[in-house]
């Protein structure tokens, strides 16, 4: 009886894993296959014949390409700004202890707690109040504030692991504080900083909720372009766009794995809100 119950438990566990794998992977396989559909309309799955027509359509459509360009430029600038600000904030946080550190840290991480829609809406009102109507400036503001906490958090996680005695040793040997930082601390913290930058880039590329509020008719990101096409249009160029975005995701994960190794990511608790 005991054996029987245990066996049932084991089989249920295996069935659970298989079902979840299918649930997570199958829709993506559907999207990838549909993006190669040869039919010229959105037909039933599975496609009868395959072609690259939707990719040709994506890469020759000025509307999508402009979205992709804006997304990439935006992600690069937002990543640069929030990583710079995040790293310098994390350095200060790492040096301090006690109440003031706790308060500052939760302040810097608080954009994670505020729902993205609220951030987008608040920035929209605020930019209108200030008279900022340039789409790119508004988007950049939104993307910086949603990526900033990730850079603080990963850099801090990277800095905490570095023993203070190393810096002290460098200073005892005659280096000043600045020299000790650039020669000892910074190289050791580099992985945390890179991870933060990769996260920032990924979240900037992915954002919809904030961007929808801040776009202007001529400045929009790729996800925003895809959302508006999804509402009005029923062709499979969106599927091709989705696969292009997936390729970016895949490259980012490779970068992350190269920079710190994926297993370490979990130990750092990066995904905890």
């Amino acid at each position, binding site marked *: 009886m005991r054996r029987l119950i245990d066996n049932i438990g084991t089989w249920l566990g295996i069935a659970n894993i298989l079902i979840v794998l299918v649930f997570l992977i199958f829709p993506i396989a559907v999207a990838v296959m549909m993006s190669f559909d040869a039919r010229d309309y959105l037909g039933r799955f599975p496609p009868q014949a395959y072609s690259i027509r939707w990719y040709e359509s994506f890469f020759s459509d000025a509307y999508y390409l402009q979205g992709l360009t804006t997304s990439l430029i935006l992600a690069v600038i937002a990543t640069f700004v929030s990583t710079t600000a995040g790293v310098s904030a994390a350095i200060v946080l790492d040096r301090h202890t006690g109440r003031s550190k706790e308060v500052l840290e939760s302040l810097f991480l608080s954009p994670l707690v505020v729902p993205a829609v609220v951030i987008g*809406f608040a920035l929209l009102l605020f930019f209108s109040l200030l008279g900022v109507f340039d789409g790119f400036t508004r988007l950049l503001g939104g993307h910086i*504030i949603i990526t900033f906490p990730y850079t603080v958090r990963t850099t801090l996680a990277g800095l905490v692991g570095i023993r203070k005695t190393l810096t002290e040793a460098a200073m005892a040997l005659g280096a000043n504080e600045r020299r000790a930082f650039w020669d000892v601390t910074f190289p050791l913290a580099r992985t945390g900083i890179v991870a933060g930058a990769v996260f920032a880039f990924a979240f900037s590329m992915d954002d919809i909720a904030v961007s929808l509020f801040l776009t202007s008719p001529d400045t929009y990101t790729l996800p925003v372009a895809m959302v508006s096409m999804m509402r009005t249009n029923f062709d499979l160029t969106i599927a091709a766009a989705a696969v292009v975005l997936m390729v970016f995701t895949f490259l980012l994960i490779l970068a992350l794995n190269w920079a710190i190794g*994926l297993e370490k990511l979990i130990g750092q608790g990066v995904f905890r809100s």
Partner: protein
Amino acid sequence: MQKSRGTLLLLLPGLGLFLALLVLPLANVVEESFRLFVPGRIGSAKDAPYTLFNYTELIEPAYAFYLLETFRFGLVSSLTALVIAFPIAYAMARQGSPLLRKLSIGFLIGMLFLSTLVRVYALQLTFGPTGYARLISGLLNVSPNGRFYTDLVVTFGLLHYLIPISAITLLGTIQNVNPKLAEAAQVLGASRLKSHFTITLPLCIPGLLSAFLICFTLCLSAFVVPMILGKGKVLFVSNLIYARFSEIANYPSGSAVAIIMLVIALMTIYGVTRVVSTRVIQD
């Protein structure tokens, strides 16, 4: 003196961004939420009188419904995600092969990084009319255009993100539970299942709570999933804010909803962190 000036300089960019892009905009939302809105305008007039109307309006059943709807989906999806993810995290934590472990962690992280829009579009193709909508709704004996099926697809949309994130969160927790404890119970005559429910599971409660918190807050702020997969039938609070902005430009009302949403999100997080931290101290 020198040192504190350096500290201030380093903090300045972060504090500046934080103030300009979060604190001041939110303060402005609070102010706007008490302004009177005259239909037909975009936003409130500069000298609009103050009023509580934007908040009292939300008590009406029509609006409270959005909130209940968000909570209902949040609860159901988060609990389902935990029940499904726990055995997966357990299997990952307890199996020996380093390769399998690396692969499964890589897979889960890949699933988290997947763009929300790609996820939603893939689910729409799969469970929509060109996919398996007719087959699945036929099996469940419901209409593919009905409320139940739409609810189901929205829940799928939430679960597609919640399952990987809870599995990863729980993996950390289970790794910290000593497997010898469960083995001891089994040596003393408990079945594997019983030792699991009486020893391992109770030790994971703080981790389960924090995973629930993460899932629930993610559901509360979900926006794209209900917008695309809900086909206008399922609307969360975030969609209400967006509608206030895009459809009728009633910024004061949108602000009031935003403030309520923010307060609920903060309270949930505060509440559950309290529960988690007292549990840890007791243990």
